[in-house]
């Protein structure tokens, strides 16, 4: 396991939580997610399909949004701060003893990401990969039924429901819940208050420093 990046002070009383690259990845994914969710629901729910109709248009927006999403993420990876992404992913993957205790409801010190955030990232990335794979087979199978997989439609549907649940929890914690909503500043402006970080992420920002 690589060294956990140390908290860097950006201005008095604030520490950097996310690099520009990480923030761009987040907002690229978030924007694409909402566009794909909106168009996907129109394609999926009969009541919306009847109301909006224009299936070809909606479907084209859905498919090209997905293509733009993938291209944008690859582009960010190519020109962005790969090291920051790799380090963050390593932190996310590392669910240590404290994280495991925290996940089952116990009190434990947390690093730059708490265990819930780690699980959220793992779920989000896995869902994104599966969305992309099942979506690709939906697209391909429609052109040539040889490549049609029985479960592509149910999987794509199930991922939508799972992602929606995850999104509701994510939005609640990021925007509403009093003790966590300061994290929103981290993903918009990059830095967070040091005293907040010390309290919420004490293994990341050492309180003795």
């Amino acid at each position, binding site marked *: 396991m690589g060294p956990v990046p140390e908290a860097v002070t950006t201005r008095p009383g604030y520490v950097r939580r996310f690099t520009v690259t990480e923030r761009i990845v987040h907002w690229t994914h978030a924007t694409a997610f909402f566009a794909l969710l909106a168009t996907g629901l129109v394609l999926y729910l009969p009541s919306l*399909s009847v109301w909006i*109709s224009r299936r070809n248009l909606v479907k084209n927006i859905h498919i090209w949004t997905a293509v733009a999403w993938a291209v944008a993420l690859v582009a960010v990876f190519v020109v962005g701060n790969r090291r920051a992404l790799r380090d963050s992913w390593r932190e996310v*993957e*590392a669910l240590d003893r404290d994280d495991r205790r925290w996940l089952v409801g116990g009190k434990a010190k947390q690093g730059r990401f708490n265990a819930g955030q780690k699980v959220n990232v793992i779920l989000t990335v*896995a869902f994104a990969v599966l969305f992309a794979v099942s979506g690709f087979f939906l697209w391909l199978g429609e052109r040539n039924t040889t490549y049609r*997989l029985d*479960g592509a*439609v149910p*999987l794509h549907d199930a991922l939508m429901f799972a992602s929606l649940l995850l999104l509701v929890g994510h939005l609640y914690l990021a925007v509403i819940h009093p003790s966590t909503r300061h994290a929103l500043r981290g993903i918009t402006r990059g830095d967070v208050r040091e005293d907040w970080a010390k309290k919420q992420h004490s293994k990341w920002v050492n309180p003795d420093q």
Partner: protein
Amino acid sequence: MNDRLIGRAGFLGLLGVGTAGLFYGRNVQDFVGRVVPKQLQAIVPTDGWRIYTIGDSVPNISPVSYRLAVGGMVDGPRTFTLDDLKALKRVEQISTFHCVTGWIVNNVHWAGFRIKDLLDEVKPHAGATAIRFVSAEPGYDDSLTLDQAMLGDVLLAYEMDGGPLPRPHGAPLRLVIPDMYGYKNVKWITRIELLPKPTAGYWEQHGYDVNAWVGRSNGNGPSA
């Protein structure tokens, strides 16, 4: 166990379960369809239907003013009201609906009439070998050979699952040909023509096979 392996195992496990879902997801969906109450179908359409249209809006046809025009190579071209069509010998069947995009709806209960009983009313010419169905959706049509149209489970339906055919499903009249993909099952039919040979329908002009046999067309086997 290495801490890092836990997160990675979780991630790869999710991908593994998801990939298995690509192949077995339909079984799960069938199960979910049995446990989700009917009242929730507005948000969880577990009956499996997706509503596909090509136009800007879904045709909204009054059953009272509805007229079906039957013409082309026939001795007696005429129009039918919905009551005229309901006076034809009623048939019911339960069949499976396959969309070319991969979703399937099992055990759809249709009621309507056989095409032969309609054609007996208009007397097709001997040279007519194909039948074209024109939808109220501008630009949408499709055709079958008469042999295909005379298959034992082909019907023109005005009822579905015990009630009048719903608007999203083609009210007041749609074609049902279970052996072919949904795009041949024209909805909102307002005109029928007898022709010397089949013409390429909307989706066939966009690359799909004319003979859309389920499981043996559109890249999968010979389409004949």
